[in-house]
């Protein structure tokens, strides 16, 4: 039988073996950055370079969201002049980037992590504290 798993099936049938949490990296202050250190539990599952690349891209995306550029200043000044009521109607720059991040994580999961029995959880669901990597039991080995 072909071993094609959809993400849904994967989650419903596989048992969770472990969870690894990538913590925040505060060396540059309170900006949202995650540690790129490769956790030992993932050594057997995924290539170090690939994982670090994922985390680095995430960090870059969060940096883009929190960037103090001209666009954010214009948005901020406009908001201030309207007593911040624009936040009720308009989607902020940060929210737009968060959507981009969600899409990126979904894509990474589909392409790289799920085939290896892993799953990345979007940090926003964990309050931007950790990147949760769920390790599923490797059923293929037990068959």
């Amino acid at each position, binding site marked *: 039988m072909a071993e094609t798993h959809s993400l849904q099936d994967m989650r419903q049938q596989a048992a969770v073996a472990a969870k690894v949490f990538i913590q925040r990296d505060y060396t540059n202050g*309170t900006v949202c950055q995650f540690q790129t250190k490769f956790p030992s539990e993932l050594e057997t599952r995924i290539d170090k370079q690939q994982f670090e690349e994922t985390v680095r891209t995430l960090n870059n995306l969060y940096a883009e969201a929190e960037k103090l550029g001209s666009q954010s*200043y214009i948005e901020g000044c406009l908001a*201030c002049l309207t007593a*911040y009521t624009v936040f009720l109607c308009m989607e902020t720059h*940060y929210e737009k980037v968060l959507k981009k991040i969600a899409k990126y994580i979904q894509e990474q999961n589909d392409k790289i992590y799920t085939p290896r029995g892993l799953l990345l959880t979007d940090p*926003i669901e964990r*309050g931007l*504290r950790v990147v949760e990597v769920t390790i599923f039991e490797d059923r293929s080995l037990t068959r």
Partner: protein
Amino acid sequence: MKNCEYQQIDPQALPIPTPTPPAQHNGSDKREEPRRARRKWEVFPGKNRFYCDGRIIVARQSGVLPLTLGLILVTSGLFFIFDCPFLVKHLTSCIPVIGGGLFVFVVITLLQTSFSDPGILPRATPDEAADIEKQIDNTGNTSYRPPPRTKEVLINQQVVKLKYCFTCKMFRPPRTSHCSLCDNCVERFDHHCPWVGNCVGKRNYRFFYTFIVSLSFLTAFIFGCVTTHLALSTWAQGGKGLVFALQESPGSAVELVICFFSVWSILGLSGFHTYLVASNLTTNEDIKGSWSGKSGEDVTNPYSHKNIFINCCTMLCGPMPPSLIDRRGFLPTDESVQTASTDIELSTLAAKNEINVCTQGTKGLLESATRSPLLSTSCPQGKQTVHTCPDNNPAVNSDPSPELSTSCGPRHTASSQGNTSPPRHTKSRAKKSKRAALHIPNPAFDVPVSPTSPDAGPSSRARGHKGSSLSPSH
């Protein structure tokens, strides 16, 4: 119970909570039991209240927010009724326009400060909490030892201690503090303001700052207009004097009193917060003296951009961070009780109905725990369903937090500073001083009582104001 093929579900074997579209599961729920999907605010563990289906969030005690609103509305109302007609006739019709604009600005920013999420950090999930404890206590010790309270990190070449929050079960990010009134960790915690009835933190600091600055303008403007009105009246009356003018326009007298006493404290507060914004400090850090080098070490604020303009721009015009608590999101169905996994593994069993009853969330867990004897009689599988509810509610299991973090910092100054600020409302201030006195000896709180001497000008007034953010004494 013996003949049911029910199998106990190991919470560890469950799949990840995935935000599957609620409509799908609503549908499946509705087939078995008509129950609407619950939103996350309904199971929020902190002491907050929610209105408009989670759109509005306030602290449990509204503090003196009604008073603040009342004073602003009354003063502005009296201004428009008594002073504006006179001034429009004798001066210019711009006056009500400017006054109206300022008034609208003040009320909008006040409501935004009070009703928005200050930057609450959601509590750690049980898996995260377990992971943190495992990392700390890796000596293989079987006896339970509470994790150490601090962790040091290097931020911009400055050593910063991160404290462990026993309530939220995580190491607090830098500048985050746990507010005991709201029972939440708040990012970039400034203070808990009773005047707005909410914490002031990362997300609503700019609203708060705009509120106090525009309120100072409004108060000063009304004060100026009332003085002009009375002066012109007195002058026009000739010999009859000030008393006659006041009798003719009693509202102006009230406004004069309110504005005279408020303008100093509000202006002082605005000045203090302008200083904080320019140096990228929080009230908390300023009062504790975290970066002032009091301990003799060479410490500088690692968060400051070393440039006043950039600091101001960052705070007031920087990107608006999103709310991390997602109050209007629907509870993931696995939390509404692993229906996903049970659907697959126990799909043939009628026990599904009973499993759905075991709703996740603090209330659900507590209710099911208390109801379990009843459940066991009404539904044979009831008892087992209670066991299978994973306790993913830290609020249920949390230890009483012995560490009252720095949210208490501003408060302890109330007793010493209560007299320095001009009483805006003597009754409430007397009440607050009493509450401060009640608060201080409480042994449960680990209040860092740093001796804050009455420093010059704005700081002392601001501390007086801040000092009134007190713990509940009732």
